[in-house]
């Protein structure tokens, strides 16, 4: 997926002005180099690795009908064979080509060049919320660690009728609501744009992020699921940290209404479980209980925080290299 594979000598192979093929490679502030002709496209791409990096500028002839990923591939072919980026499907379905195009988290394969302001340089940076491996490739392990801490589907036992019929029976109206969340392609653009962790690195120790709120909502709305994740979401997964500012919804390439259909319904469920005195009274009278965070998390593959502070505490976003 990562091409070319990570090069341990990145600095030595990074493009420089001596690179014969690089036409006018200028490092520096994006947008500082005007395109020589409107027929050309100017790509300002962040190059670097775990030691730091900077923007490099490439001029290419424009071609009709291209998406940003096509142009990145042409930069690889003609200017910078060592430029690393992830991609796989070129159809907006694999979720690998996430980057920040002109500052907006987007899929490179789904952003048409003609949707960007014509004649202006196009800036491409890696996702800011995750540490850089190389160039446009980031280490998204944090998301996989969160995923391990989401308690999986926990179905109720089958009824006698269902046993006889050979399996569970569910009504269409009960399953259709959570279908929306199954469209997720795990591009992690929502996790990238979410300011809770984008601008406050330390929150990663106690925040699941929009993609995983959508996953929990899907399970909480599943008609067969019997787990109760409300206390887990409130205490350990940082649902309360989300301030419903909807950036996750704005960037989701699958147009999942993450905030309206997953996060706010979860917040309302948490109100039922923890903040509504009448709901509390109702639970007492009807003798209903709720699961504690620990009980809810018991079936999750992993426990504990998804991220930890190093010995020197980190807060805010670590300063990017270059500049």
């Amino acid at each position, binding site marked *: 997926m990562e091409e070319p594979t990570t090069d341990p000598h990145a600095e030595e192979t990074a493009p420089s002005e001596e690179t014969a093929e690089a036409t006018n490679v200028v490092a520096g502030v994006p947008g500082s180099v005007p395109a020589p002709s409107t027929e050309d496209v100017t790509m300002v791409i962040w190059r670097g690795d775990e030691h730091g990096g900077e923007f490099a500028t490439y001029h290419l002839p424009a071609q009709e009908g291209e998406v940003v990923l096509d142009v990145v591939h042409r930069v690889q072919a003609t200017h910078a064979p060592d430029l690393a980026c992830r991609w796989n499907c070129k159809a907006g379905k694999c979720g690998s080509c996430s980057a920040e195009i002109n*500052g*907006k988290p987007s899929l490179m394969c789904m952003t048409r060049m003609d949707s960007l302001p014509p004649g202006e340089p196009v800036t491409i940076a890696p*996702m800011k919320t995750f540490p850089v491996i190389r160039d446009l490739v980031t280490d998204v392990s944090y998301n996989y660690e969160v995923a391990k801490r989401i308690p999986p589907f926990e179905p109720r036992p089958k009824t006698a009728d269902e046993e006889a019929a050979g399996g569970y029976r569910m009504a269409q109206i009960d399953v259709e609501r959570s279908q929306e969340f199954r469209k997720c392609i795990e591009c992690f653009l929502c996790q990238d744009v979410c300011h809770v962790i984008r601008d406050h690195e330390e929150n990663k120790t106690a925040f699941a992020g929009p993609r995983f709120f959508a996953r929990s909502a899907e399970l909480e709305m599943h008609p067969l699921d019997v787990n109760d994740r409300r206390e887990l979401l409130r205490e350990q997964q940082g649902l309360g940290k989300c301030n419903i500012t909807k950036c996750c919804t704005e960037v989701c390439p699958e147009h999942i209404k993450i905030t309206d259909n997953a996060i706010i*319904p979860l917040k309302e469920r948490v109100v039922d479980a923890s903040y509504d005195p009448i709901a509390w009274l109702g639970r007492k009278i009807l003798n209903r209980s709720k699961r504690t965070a620990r009980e809810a998390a018991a079936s999750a593959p992993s426990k504990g925080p998804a991220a930890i502070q190093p010995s020197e505490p980190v807060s805010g976003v670590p300063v990017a290299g270059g500049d």
Partner: protein
Amino acid sequence: MVTKEDTIATPVVLGGVRGGPARVATLRKDRWWVQPVTTVTVLTAFVAYATWAAFINKDYYVGAASHRDLISPFYSPCLTGSCVPGSHPGSVLSWWTISPALLILIFPLGFRLTCYYYRKAYYRSFWWAPPACAVADAHNSYTGESRFPLIMQNVHRYFFFAGLVLNTILTIDAVMAFRQPGHGIGISVGTVVLSVNAILLWLYSLSCHACRHLCGGGLKVFSNHPIRHRIWKLLTPLNAKHMAFAWMSLVFVALTDLYVRLVASGTIHDAGFHF
């Protein structure tokens, strides 16, 4: 298939180099600031007008002398001893001597302040957390709504109930406005204004996220509750337009007050006819 290796907890260590420029709030080049600036402008204008209208304590009722029964939504229900004659069902709270609007406006204020949509709007535009997507948050530390005071946003559903009571009263006001004392039943610009205002306020309340949850969204198995599922189905498309209703009802409620105020002060005449 999930293998054992996949599930071993190996928490990531915070930190590491990030791509993009340092010390730059955003690489966005579009006009991302238009939305926060618009929000600040409209909300500030509304708050300024509403505060003025609430404190001025006059010109909120057009009564029998002009063959009308129009009350400003900011002053209804008028419950205090200071209410002008005809505007209230009887002075319930005679000890309240300052503007009766202050007593009423606490509820819509609380409702809108804790509304999920307005929260988004003011967190972005006033608090800059974040001002726009992929534009850096203006604060060094951040706990969101997980602590006091913002944890109090969770009372929203109780303000929703209070909102329903007020909507009912404003609906009664709108219906009563069709009685033109001394003339009989009639229609005037004022009745239309009050009716549209009531409808917009209902659309705003019914599209509320807490309403959608309480009516059916909180259920796990819809098929056991067909009626609540029906209601949820009806509310869901309204909910998708909650932002639009929030702005429309906000602007219109101020315009309604303004209209009643202009008529009550004699600046304009409430055109209409009667049967």
